[in-house]
């Protein structure tokens, strides 16, 4: 049943150990105006785990990420981040929580009018009282971490898509965040780059102790990096499976999850009869 022959993920799912919750979502309803995208969504992300949000296109993964990162308010329910109810806090508390997030957007979202170094320096200037010299050194280090040493003076338009993503990651890591969110990190990358990015994610998780939340449909990535996951069903509009992706593959709780994780076309099989 091991579809893609991935390396066995030897790390224990942290959910089975006693670690505090980094994120706790309870009874969430997500809506665009009258259109209810999902309801009764509840899950926890433990500290220091790599948490995957999976689901078909249009199931609302990116929207869920927006709610977790403070860009969109939920219609109902609570989001606790580090035990604090994010959406019922005042803006100062929200800002404080947001400053401990690092986010890698699908396109990198680098500021196009600034060089890579300036991009990475921006959050440092905003939230720390380092001197300019210290900031320069930190920027240098972060660029080296993602393999872009020496590209500090380049503008985003002068580098490739994969490099933009890595530069975006360097910026996300600028403030040593507690939680890093990734929206489809491997989309648009060649297999090698996407594999390297996965390795980078694991390195960050293990060496910096960062909690990581990843939205992805890349099965390879899901099995290589994920220690816990949820599956969003776009028809039932809620979470229909939760757990380590490898366990879900062994004992899929429903057909949809099995089709998703084994890459079989459940929908078409049914209909072409």
């Amino acid at each position, binding site marked *: 049943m091991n579809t893609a022959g991935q390396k066995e993920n030897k790390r224990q799912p942290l959910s089975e150990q006693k670690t505090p919750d980094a994120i706790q979502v309870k009874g969430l309803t997500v809506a665009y105006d009258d259109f209810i995208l999902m309801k009764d969504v509840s899950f926890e992300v433990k500290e220091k785990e790599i948490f995957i949000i999976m689901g078909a296109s249009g199931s609302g993964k990116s929207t869920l990420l927006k709610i977790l990162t403070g*860009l969109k308010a939920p219609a109902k329910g609570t989001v606790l981040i580090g035990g604090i109810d994010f959406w019922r806090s005042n803006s100062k508390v929200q800002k404080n929580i*947001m400053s401990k997030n690092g*986010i890698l*957007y699908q*396109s990198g979202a680098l*500021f*196009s009018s600034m060089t890579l170094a300036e991009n990475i320096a921006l959050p440092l200037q905003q939230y720390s009282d380092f001197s300019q010299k210290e900031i320069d050194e930190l920027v240098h280090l972060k660029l080296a971490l993602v393999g872009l040493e020496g590209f500090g003076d380049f503008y985003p338009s002068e580098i490739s898509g994969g490099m933009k993503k890595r530069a975006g990651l360097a910026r996300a890591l600028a403030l040593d965040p507690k939680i890093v969110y990734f929206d489809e990190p491997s989309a648009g990358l060649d297999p090698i780059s996407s594999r390297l990015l996965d390795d980078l994610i694991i390195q960050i998780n293990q060496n910096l102790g960062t909690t990581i939340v990843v939205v992805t449909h890349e099965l390879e990535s899901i099995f290589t990096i994920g220690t816990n996951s949820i599956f969003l069903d776009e028809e039932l509009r809620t979470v229909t499976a939760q757990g380590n992706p490898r366990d879900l593959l062994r004992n899929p709780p429903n057909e949809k999850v099995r089709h998703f994780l084994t890459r079989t076309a459940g929908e078409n099989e049914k209909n*072409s009869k």
Partner: protein
Amino acid sequence: MKMEQAATRQIRYSLSESGLLEISFQGDFLHYEHLEELEEIQKLPETPLLKKIILKGEGIQKWDSTLLVILYDLAQKAGEKKIPVKTDNLPEGIQNLLNLALTVKRRPPETEEKKESFLTRWGEETLNKYAALKKGAAFTGTAFKSIGRFFTSSVVMRPVDFLFALQDCGYKALPIVAVISFMVGLIFGFVGSMQLKLFGAQIYVASLVAIAMVRVMGAVMTGIIMAGRTGASYAATIGTMQVNEEVDALKTMGIPVTDFLLLPRMLALMLTMPLLTVFSDLFGIMGGSVVGIFLLDLSPVEYWNYSINALNLKNFLIGVFHGFVFGCVIALCGCYYGIYCGKDADSVGKATTNAVVASIVWIIICTAIITVFCEVFGI
């Protein structure tokens, strides 16, 4: 029932007593769109007493999507009438593609067409406009709070952004402002002279042009030029940042978007617009003087003296104040539509258009308000 075609291409069909329709295809079907044949075939499923259709295609040599479209249509029409279609004898490629196309897929959810009365729509439109106005007012409030913070405490604004904006709406805008203001002055002078000449009062062309330009027209012309030039560029730049998720990135970094994006641009326009207005006044007067000197044979010194005498500090300051207000209006409209831009390229275009239109409308509204205000208070 038989139909003959050119030798290489043949479609035959026969209907048996028991309601069995056999259609056989032969030859090449490339760019196949023979309309008469097509209509003929498409009517076939409507034949009364039809029980089953058998498609035979052993003789098909070359084919492309145009044949597929016809078969797909046929199969769908037959499907609606619950008539089975046997495709086993078609080339395998056609069979597979047909199956793929005919497989029931998820369709987009059907939205109910709401039938609304004229009044409902009108009411809704009004409510929408009201909501938009409220949103705009809130945005303006945030912008001025941002400016307040700029003078009292610290804001997240990169000086280089401010300098860049200053350069863009400063000396780079001079040529176009000069040309257009000169022309407007010329037109004023010309139109005015035709009337004033009737009374032998052509020397007052100088005062007319000077007062009109300095008190309001210099500022309005500069405002309209800058709305099209700078306001549009603000909306497009910030709109593109929205599409690239850069605005999201700013927000999640906890950096106030108004501080970072609007403030440098607004400050730059607030600074340069009054200066550009003065510049425009000067060129307007120069344009008028061309008419005065060459058409009306006034001496340059005379013209200049009349212009200066017609003006007073009050008119000058009102003009400059107009410029200042228009600077705020252009920056606010440009940035507002940029920040509330959608997530695709199309929205950037819309944002740009809206920014320019809104800037110009608000420039005119502000001119009216200031004029009425001055009138009431006798300024």
